[in-house]
């Protein structure tokens, strides 16, 4: 099986007057699992369809396996694709669904049989081969759709929200299955989703998109820990990152000031030299902890609500200036609504953003 890299340069796509993608650049390594993550309508499917050759591009270049395929037919690009709606051929059996593409390409019958058998075994479809799609469950249908992609022995596999139509449990199961498939085949995969959990669990690298622009392209860890801007910070992570408005002050040691609260910035890795300016402090709920009230950097907050979440609890608080935020604490925390807590906000876990541009500082 060949594993192709994908190179997209200055890609432009529009529908009529609407510009969906403008000068988009993206490089995907061979064998990489790249996830395109973003809210619905941001152009993820458009990008994937362009790679597949299903829509015309206005400008730019798409290379797959170092071959310029910008104007090539979908079938000549060495790609396979899995759709959210499964898109199985309803009047064909599972076997015929899997073999249709190979038949069209006039593959010899014994080769078809061996590829279909192999894919069916890998996806546990062997007993279902003679059924119609209407006789399958949602999870089975999506496995057939994945199988139909696998038999193509493509250089790049494209997935457009393949799990979005499934219920939570099946989604988790199939997610693992896809990850296993990638580990086993080492194939290049480009996977579109709006579900950040899927992105974080599956990806080698995530491209977070908004408004047709890639906001950040990085490993899941980096995306989660060092979001490049406020959009990425708020889109990735659940429960969501807290944001506190204030300003950076350099008098008496570097600190972030929000009303009466003072957050020590010692240990924060600034990208640009800090200056006294309005800013937004971001911190994830799991990084805030309760400490003794006599601690020099303790910040007081009033508990508003406790949300038990099974393994732990989410505690909703307000700072003196009224800013609401939440933090994670163990499930048998004693906090009650109305209590005042002393909290530690560790500077290493901060993400500071420019108040105007929203870019990471």
């Amino acid at each position, binding site marked *: 099986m060949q594993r192709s890299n994908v190179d997209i340069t200055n890609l432009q796509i529009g529908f009529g007057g609407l510009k969906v993608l403008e000068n988009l650049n993206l490089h995907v390594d061979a064998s990489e699992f790249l996830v395109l993550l973003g809210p619905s309508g941001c152009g993820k499917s458009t990008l994937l*369809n362009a790679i*597949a050759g*299903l829509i*015309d591009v206005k400008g730019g270049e798409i290379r797959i396996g170092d071959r310029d395929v910008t104007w090539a*037919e*979908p*079938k000549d690009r060495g*790609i*396979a*694709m899995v*759709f*959210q*709606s*499964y*898109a*199985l*051929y*309803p*009047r064909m059996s599972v076997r015929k669904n899997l073999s*249709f*593409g190979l038949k*069209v*390409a006039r593959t010899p019958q014994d080769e078809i049989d061996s590829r279909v058998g192999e894919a069916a075994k890998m996806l546990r479809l062997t007993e279902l081969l003679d059924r*119609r*799609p*209407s*006789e*399958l469950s*949602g999870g089975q*249908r999506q496995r057939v759709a994945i199988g*139909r992609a696998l038999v*193509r022995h493509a250089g790049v596999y494209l997935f457009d929200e393949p799990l979005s*139509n499934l219920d939570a449990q099946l989604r988790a199961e199939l997610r693992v299955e896809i990850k296993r498939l990638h580990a086993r085949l080492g194939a290049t995969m480009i996977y579109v989703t709006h579900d950040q959990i899927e992105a974080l669990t599956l990806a080698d690298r995530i491209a977070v998109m908004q408004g047709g622009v890639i906001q950040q392209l990085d490993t899941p860890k980096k995306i989660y820990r060092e979001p490049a801007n406020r959009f990425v910070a708020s889109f990735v992570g659940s429960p969501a990152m807290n944001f506190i408005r204030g300003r950076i002050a350099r008098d008496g040691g570097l600190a972030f000031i929000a009303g009466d609260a003072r957050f020590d910035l010692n240990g924060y890795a600034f990208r640009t030299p800090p200056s006294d300016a309005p800013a937004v402090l971001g911190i994830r709920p799991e990084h805030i902890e309760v400490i003794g009230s006599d601690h020099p950097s303790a910040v007081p907050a009033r508990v508003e609500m406790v949300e038990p979440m099974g393994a732990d609890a989410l505690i909703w608080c307000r700072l003196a200036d009224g800013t609401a935020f939440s933090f994670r604490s163990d499930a048998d925390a004693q906090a009650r609504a109305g209590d005042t807590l002393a909290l530690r906000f560790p500077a290493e876990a901060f993400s500071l953003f420019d108040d105007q541009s929203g870019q990471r500082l």
Partner: protein
Amino acid sequence: MSATALSSGRPRRISPARWGLYAFILITALYFLLPLYVMIVTSLKPMAEIRQGNLLALPASPSLAAWVKAWTSACTGLTCEGIRIGFFNSLRILVPSVVISILVGSLTGYALSLWRVRGANILFGAMMVVAFIPYQVFIYPLVRVFSFTGLGQSLATIVTIHTIFGLPTMTLLFRNYFTSLPVELFKAARIDGAGFYQIYARIMMPMATPMIVVAVILQTTGIWNDFILGLVFAGRDNLPMTVQLNNIVNSTQGERAYNVDMAATLLTALLPLVVYFGSGRWFVRGIAAGAVKG
């Protein structure tokens, strides 16, 4: 489960409004059934009995003589070989016209819905506008066109005519159906490497069974009931059943044979009736089930 759902419903009382509705339905049914009844009984009576003028009476001794005459020996102009000639003419016009018009219409509907044909919407709009122009307007120009091409009046001409006049409806029907299908199905087939005709024949048409049934019904009744186009374009040897029927009913030699006229009319109406009653169960729903989440 559905049984319990039904029986657990509130006991239904029939309101006055409902009585009114039933009465209306009953009267409407009578209005349409009464002429049919009269036609059937008349066709089974000998002329002597008809002359007594008892329109609604059942035949004293029902006989199929008028039906046999209508089928085999009624005069349809100069020849007296019954309406069967017209029946077989109509059949010869019908079968190729229905098949070809559905083939062409589904193909254009498919092209206009799924492929990015340049100016598809304009083409489609133009077709719809033309569909609303009374077709009498086109008859004379078309006669000129066909005499110019040398086809003149012939079976090929009338089949072509029916195909052309069926095109807007057939295109609309199939275009709307194919547009309603999930577009991913088409994309998947493209990635699988299937071309224009392969996707049409192997993916789309097998899914379009309900539409094909509708199209067959529409075209069959439309073409079978056609009079003017058949009269103008079919040529003397291919006159359809409707034209022959007209000849039988309107031939004015001697006494009007009401029983034969009725039998001939019923014979002419038979095929559309059979199509309506026979095809109902083929209106299968949910052929596309399984293609999308379901």
